């Protein structure tokens, strides 16, 4: 290896040499591309052989049309705004609550029954109630998304805190650290991988909840657009929305994954 690493050594035992790994990577990418093109091909054939599906060019044309008229951007922004608001609020609330539950037994005793109870209810099932209580504005939708993100993240954070290695805490104690320092310098970093996994699960859950909530009650958004298109048998618009939902969800997940590898790259992978 001739890369001039400044001071960190290249992890030598981490599997295959770069050339072979790069080759494997290329093969995988090729297979991915073949699979995508093949899938679209099958769809095309099915559309042409009488199934009631729009063909790929029709969907593409519809997509361009929706984008040009600004409808697509409007829907994307509406959906994205809701999901981000709910997700960020949910995570921001989940992390301190999760830490409290993991660190203080009384907090665990107080929070746990409610979290365990609401965890078994799909957030969407609360939508009718929430709609009655909060009206039909943005608030009920953001609230159920908040709940979805919160529940996923709080459990994970809590689990991260209680599973912090005792010996690491002891190591900090024998070096003179007191509770506050141990919390900030050991518990928080040690549980960060759990928190980030919780956030990713929370984001997935928030996205799923959002689209379903928009199907039921909204005036804009990708889910709403599909609901509308359904009444007019406008399959192309439904396809455009599905693709947009998938792509957006994937992009958000990848962004969090990137943050995760950045922030928790210190972990030993086995």
């Amino acid at each position, binding site marked *: 290896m001739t890369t001039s690493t400044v*001071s960190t050594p290249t992890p030598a035992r981490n599997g295959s040499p770069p050339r072979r790994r790069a080759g494997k990577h290329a093969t995988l990418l090729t297979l991915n591309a073949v699979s995508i093109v093949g899938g679209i091909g099958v769809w095309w054939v099915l559309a042409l052989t009488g199934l009631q599906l729009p063909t790929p060019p029709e969907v593409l044309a519809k997509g361009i049309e929706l984008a040009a008229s600004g409808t697509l951007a409007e829907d994307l922004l509406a959906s994205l705004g809701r999901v981000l608001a709910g997700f960020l609020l949910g995570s921001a609330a989940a992390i301190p609550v999760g830490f409290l539950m993991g660190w203080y037994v009384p907090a665990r005793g107080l929070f746990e029954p409610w979290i365990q109870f609401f965890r078994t209810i799909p957030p969407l099932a609360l939508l009718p109630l929430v709609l009655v209580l909060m009206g039909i504005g943005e608030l009920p939708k953001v609230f159920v998304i908040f709940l979805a993100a919160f529940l996923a993240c709080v459990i994970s954070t809590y689990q991260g805190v209680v599973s912090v290695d005792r010996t690491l805490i*002891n*190591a900090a104690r024998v*070096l*003179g650290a007191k509770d506050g320092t141990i919390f900030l310098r*050991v518990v928080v970093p040690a549980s960060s991988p759990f928190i980030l996994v919780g956030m990713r699960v929370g984001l997935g859950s928030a996205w799923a909840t959002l689209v379903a909530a928009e199907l039921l009650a909204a005036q804009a958004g990708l889910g709403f657009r599909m609901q509308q298109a359904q009444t007019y048998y406008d399959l192309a618009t439904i396809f455009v929305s599905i693709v947009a939902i998938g792509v957006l969800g994937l992009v958000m997940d990848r962004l969090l994954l990137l943050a995760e590898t950045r922030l928790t*790259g*210190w972990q030993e992978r086995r």
Partner: protein
Amino acid sequence: MSTDTPTLTGTAKISVRDTRKTFALKDEEFVALDGVSLDVADNEFVTVVGPSGCGKSTLMNIVAGLETPTSGQVLVDGAGVTGPGPERGVIFQQYALFPWLTVRKNVEFGLKVAGLPAAERRERSEHYVRLVGLEQFADALPKTLSGGMKQRCAIARAYAVNPSILLMDEPFGALDALTRVRLQEQLLDTWSTEKRTVLFITHDVDEAVFLAGRVVVMAARPGRIHEVIDVNLPYPRTEEVRLSPEFAELRNRVWRAVYHQTQTQTKN
């Protein structure tokens, strides 16, 4: 801050007195330590050997202040131990490095806790990282280090806060023979230059004799001190000492004490 109730005692640096430790199991209590008494003098190097489960780690954790004895007392510098403190450095068997910190930051952890300014921290960590031969890996994360390198980092971290007592729980247990011998020699080197009191737990009889001024042999069920063997070999311990007949004889004595405990017991 972690010790109180000063009492009038002899000159022992560490004094374990009639200490008993029990753990509550489902329907009985398990006696991990029973009536253990041990005095370790200032600057003494004491090793502890004994069969698995005889309470060596429990004893060390009590001296470290990580566990409280069920009865009895542990004094450090004549004051009762009530919790851990930076004057007692601990090196854990499982390395216990903070995986999110680089070697340097691990070594600086205790210095940061103590509130040392950054420049001084840096200087001290540089010194100890060099002492254990990790200067090329100062900015590496623990996951990129080998077992022996992690262990050396843990040693540097414990040394950096300059504790007057070092408590080491099978620190070289997972190392290959060559690294182990090198680290033993390094440990004796630093022990003789920066005088410290060392309580060193090991499974390895050779290691116990090679390092110690005194070997404490423990027995299990209940955990107790079986025999204390003086090692009257000169320091520095060179390879010559290691290969000497006196060494071999002591080694055999310790070996018999550890592995033929049942016979000796029935005789008593």
